[in-house]
C-alpha cells in the first residue's frame, strides 16, 4: 500500500499537467487509500480499547500508527510519516511492550469487577454525545480557521516538506525546540529517579530501617502485596517526615510509596536520640 501511495505522491505534481483521465485515476487511488487506512485506523483503535490482553492492545496500536503514517504521506507530510514510524512504532510501542513483559502483566483483565457503578454505561454515552456534537458543529457551521501560510508555505518549497519543516523548526520555532531538549533531559532524569532501586539498609538514608526492608524491596509481591495497607503507610511516612527525621527517599523528592522503600509499620516514637546523624 505504501508503494501505491508513494507513486501517487510522486505523480501528484504531474496531475496538473495531465488530462482528466490521469486526474481521475489519481483521485480514485487517493480515495481508496484514504478509506483503506481509515478502516485500519478505526479497527486498530477499537482493538486497543477492547483487547483484554495488553500485548494485543499494543499490537493493535502499532497497526493504527502505521495507518496514520500512511495518511500522513497521503497529505504530503513525508518526514512526519517517517518519524511516526520510527519514534512511535519503533520506540514508544517497543517501550510499552518492554514494560508489559518486564512486569509480567500480559494476562487478562477481569472485567466483571466495576468499582464505579455505571461507569461502563455512562462513559460511552458521554463519548458518543461529544463526538456527535463535534461532528454536527463541524458540518453545520462555518469556522474561521485562520489565514494561510502564517509560518511558511508547506508546499512548493525547494527541498520539499523536509526542508520546509527544518526551516520552520530552526528559525521560527528555535526557542521551543531548545525547550524540547530540556524537556527530554528532565524526562530522562525523572525516569532514572523513578526506576532507581531503593537504597539498601546499610546506608544511613534508611533511618527507620528494618531488617526485612531489603527483602520487601526486592520481592514486594509477597511482603507488601496485601491490600488495605496504604493508609497506615501514608500516615506513617507523613508522621516520620513531620518529626524531622530524614525520610527514606526524601532526598530525591519521591514519596516513599512510589520509591518502594517504606515498609508499613507502627508509628515510631519521636525520640531525638533515635535520629541517625
Amino acid at each position, binding site marked *: 500500500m505504501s508503494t501505491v501511495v508513494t507513486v501517487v505522491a510522486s505523480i501528484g505534481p504531474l496531475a496538473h499537467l495531465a488530462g482528466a483521465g490521469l486526474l481521475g485515476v489519481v483521485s480514485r487511488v487517493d480515495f481508496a487509500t484514504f478509506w483503506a487506512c481509515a478502516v485500519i485506523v478505526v479497527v486498530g483503535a477499537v482493538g486497543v480499547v477492547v483487547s483484554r490482553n495488553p500485548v494485543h492492545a499494543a499490537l493493535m496500536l502499532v497497526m493504527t500508527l502505521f495507518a496514520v503514517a500512511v495518511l500522513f504521506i497521503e*497529505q504530503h507530510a513525508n518526514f512526519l510519516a517517517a518519524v511516526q514510524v520510527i519514534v512511535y512504532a519503533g520506540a*514508544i510501542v517497543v517501550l*510499552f511492550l518492554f514494560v508489559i513483559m518486564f512486569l509480567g502483566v500480559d494476562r487478562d483483565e477481569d472485567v466483571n469487577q466495576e468499582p464505579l457503578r455505571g461507569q461502563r454505561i455512562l462513559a460511552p454515552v458521554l463519548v458518543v454525545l461529544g463526538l456527535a456534537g463535534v461532528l454536527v458543529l463541524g458540518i453545520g457551521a462555518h469556522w474561521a480557521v485562520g489565514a494561510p501560510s502564517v509560518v511558511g508555505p508547506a508546499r512548493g518549497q525547494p527541498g520539499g516538506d523536509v526542508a520546509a519543516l527544518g526551516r520552520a523548526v530552526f528559525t521560527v520555532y528555535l526557542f521551543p525546540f531548545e525547550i524540547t531538549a530540556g524537556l527530554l533531559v528532565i*524526562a530522562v532524569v525523572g525516569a532514572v529517579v523513578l526506576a532507581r532501586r531503593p537504597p539498601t539498609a546499610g546506608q544511613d538514608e534508611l533511618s527507620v530501617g528494618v531488617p526485612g526492608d531489603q527483602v520487601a524491596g526486592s520481592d514486594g509481591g509477597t511482603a507488601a502485596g496485601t491490600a488495605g495497607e496504604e493508609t497506615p503507610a501514608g500516615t506513617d511516612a507523613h508522621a516520620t517526615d513531620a518529626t524531622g527525621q530524614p525520610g527514606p527517599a526524601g532526598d530525591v523528592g519521591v514519596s516513599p*510509596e512510589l*520509591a518502594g522503600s517504606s515498609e508499613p509499620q507502627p508509628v515510631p516514637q519521636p525520640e531525638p536520640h533515635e535520629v541517625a546523624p
Partner: protein
Amino acid sequence: MSVPASWYLALSAVVFSIGALGVLVRRNVLVMFMCVELMLNAANLALVTFARQLNDIGGEALVFFVLVVAAAEVVVGLGIVVAIFRRRRGTTADDLHLMKG
C-alpha cells in the same frame, strides 16, 4: 481533486473519541496510556490536515513537538508504573487511592 479535509477531520474526531472512551473505561494503566497515545495521534492527524489545507508548515512543526512531548510522557509514565508495580502487584488504576481524602 484529493480527499477533502473534512473527511480527515471526521476520522480524527472518531479516533479521538475511541481513545477517550478507552481512558474512561479501561482500568489497566498501560492500556490507558495506549489510549492517550491514540488521542495524541488523532490530534496529530488533525494538525497535519490543517497544515495541508492552509498550506502552512506550522501545523507540521507542532506535530513534531507533540511527538517529542508524547515520548517524554511515555518515559515518565512508564517509570511511574514500574515504581508502583514494584511496590504492589497490579497496574489497576482504581487500586491507587492513596491520595483519596
